């Protein structure tokens, strides 16, 4: 599906979105700090980052809603915002949630937004509105006022608006927000089918599992900067695996794992049935991509834990997920200071 983003993916002109040193300052606050994005054409590009990382501001700059303080933007090979009038008709967007006139029906809202685009054919407007509504499963609610829509229905209507005309690029900010699991699946398959037609999809999301299933490329943003960018595998594999120890003596486990040169921490978000049982996690850095544990033998760690008298209830070597990588990159991890908890 994403094979066309292969060899010449980074050749000039093969980028759907390209920014250099993109910066936005609001007063003294640096919202976006010299961001260099490179979104290959035909890719499904995941744009990740915690709240307040600057994702939405970046998207607003890409679409010409907010002027950049400095830096350059190129969308579909043309400079923005200079070529806004010729670029934006080819771009469908869902920006920071759907927004509609509550007193109009879903179809009337799409009709209204479609009249704003001078490049489309007014004669086909009603047909395109109906098609877009059907595509997101809102055909039955077309005549209903938007104030009676649920959040999920509004989200679908926002997607329908992005699909009113044929697009080369879709910029979707949190497309699954407010959708039930069924809707999330539908959005995922919709994005896949659009990507299969060659549309580049730039999607920001907090749902890391979603991004992991959908995207060929990702960029991770934190505090206004891009901290990692590339193909999904390249970003994920920088942190190959982690060791997970279930024990009633987390302090002992931390000490033993630290002796191996690892940086263990007590998981704060995993609850266990027994209050005394803790989960200790230690990422294993990859020095050699071929060997998942980079020379450290898991069985040696188990032996050392037992020798140190740490009661081990469970021990696993886990493949890292995008979530681990995300947490490591954006500094949301909960690192226990080494050794300070020794009795």
């Amino acid at each position: 599906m994403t094979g066309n983003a292969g060899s010449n993916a980074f050749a000039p002109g093969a980028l759907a979105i390209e920014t250099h040193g993109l910066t936005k300052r609001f007063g003294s606050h640096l919202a976006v700090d010299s961001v260099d994005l490179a979104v290959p054409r035909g890719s499904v590009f995941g744009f990740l980052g915690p709240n307040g990382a600057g994702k939405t501001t970046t998207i607003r700059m890409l679409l010409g809603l907010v002027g950049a303080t400095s830096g350059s933007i190129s969308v579909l090979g043309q400079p923005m915002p200079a070529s806004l009038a010729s670029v934006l008709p080819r771009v469908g967007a869902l920006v920071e949630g759907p927004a509609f006139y509550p007193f109009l029906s879903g179809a009337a809202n799409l009709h209204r937004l479609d009249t704003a685009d001078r490049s489309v054919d007014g004669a086909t407007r009603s047909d395109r509105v109906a098609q877009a509504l059907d595509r997101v499963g809102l055909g039955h609610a077309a005549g209903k006022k938007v104030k009676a829509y649920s959040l999920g229905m509004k989200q679908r209507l926002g997607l329908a608006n992005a699909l009113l005309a044929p697009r080369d690029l879709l910029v979707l900010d949190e497309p699954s927000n407010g959708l039930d699991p069924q809707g999330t699946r539908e959005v995922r398959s919709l994005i896949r089918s659009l990507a299969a037609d060659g549309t580049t999809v730039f999607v920001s999301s907090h749902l890391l599992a979603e991004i992991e299933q959908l995207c060929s490329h990702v960029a991770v943003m934190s505090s206004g900067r891009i901290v990692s960018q590339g193909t999904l595998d390249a970003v994920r594999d920088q942190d190959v695996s982690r060791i997970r120890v279930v024990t009633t003596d987390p302090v002992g486990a931390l000490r033993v794992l630290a002796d191996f040169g690892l940086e263990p921490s007590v998981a704060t978000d995993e609850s266990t049935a027994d209050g005394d049982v803790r989960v200790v996690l230690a990422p294993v850095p990859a020095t050699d991509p071929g060997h998942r544990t980079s020379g450290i033998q898991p069985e040696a760690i188990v032996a050392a834990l037992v020798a140190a008298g740490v009661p081990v209830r469970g021990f696993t070597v886990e493949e890292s997920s995008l979530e681990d990588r995300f947490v490591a990159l954006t500094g949301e991890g909960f690192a226990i200071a080494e050794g300070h908890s020794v009795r």
Partner: protein
Amino acid sequence: MSDSPVSDSTLSASTAPGETASVRARPPRGLGLALLASELAILFRRTRTIAMLAALAAVPILIAVAVRVSSSGSSGRGPAFIDQITQNGLFVGVAGLILCIPLFLPLTVGVAAGDTIAGEASHGTLRYLLVAPAGRVRLLIVKFLGTVAFCIAAPLVVVLAGTVIGAILFPLGNVTLLSGDTVSISESLGRALLMSAYVSVSLIGLSAIGLFISTLTDTPVGAMAATIVISVAAQVVGSLDQLAWLHPWLFSYHWLGVVDMLRQPILWSSFGDNAILQLGYVIVFGALAYSRFVTKSILS
């Protein structure tokens, strides 16, 4: 770096698997009047607009009904126009219009003009209109034309409602003008429409101010209130003799000059002076709104 039109070559090269992949750049078609049509449809189908126009229509109806119910002949009190209603129903529309000029009409225009940009911003639809892309200048012009349409509709509704209720409740006849001349029913109807047009022009300066204020905020109620306050303030200033030097520059200066349309011959210079003054306001506040809106960061 990307000066050359790369689109043609890359679109065909980079999307080999799916021939349908690329969308050719679509040039704009015509003026894009569809947006103006949509703006007018939304404005005049909106419950709020209909309610405002209904309230305006209620003014002459209330006057007529009140005068009819308490009609004990001319009491000699109250405005001269109201007194004349009982003799000729054609005066109801004119009386209603003059009564609405200082407050009711500016109030509704303040609501319509204050809502233009700030209302879209508060709904969040502003960002979707601009991403469509509507074009900032085009959107501003469409919004202004929408308020102009409201300025035309509002006084017209007062005059028409007044004329109809006047015809129902009172006798009709030739109208005696301010200058003492008498004109036929049909000409007096023409005069009433002319007065309506005069008031429409009078309100356009205020709508330009409202449009500008609307670009300053994402809160429509704030923009509406500010516009209405300005219209009241201008009339207060206009009533202070100490500020007489300022009076010719106030957008409300010629508002009550509408009665010049009831003279024989019609004082066209009054209409022209008013139009020039309003045009000045449109230029100044249109330019302010333009300079503000084209550079505005759309964060709503």
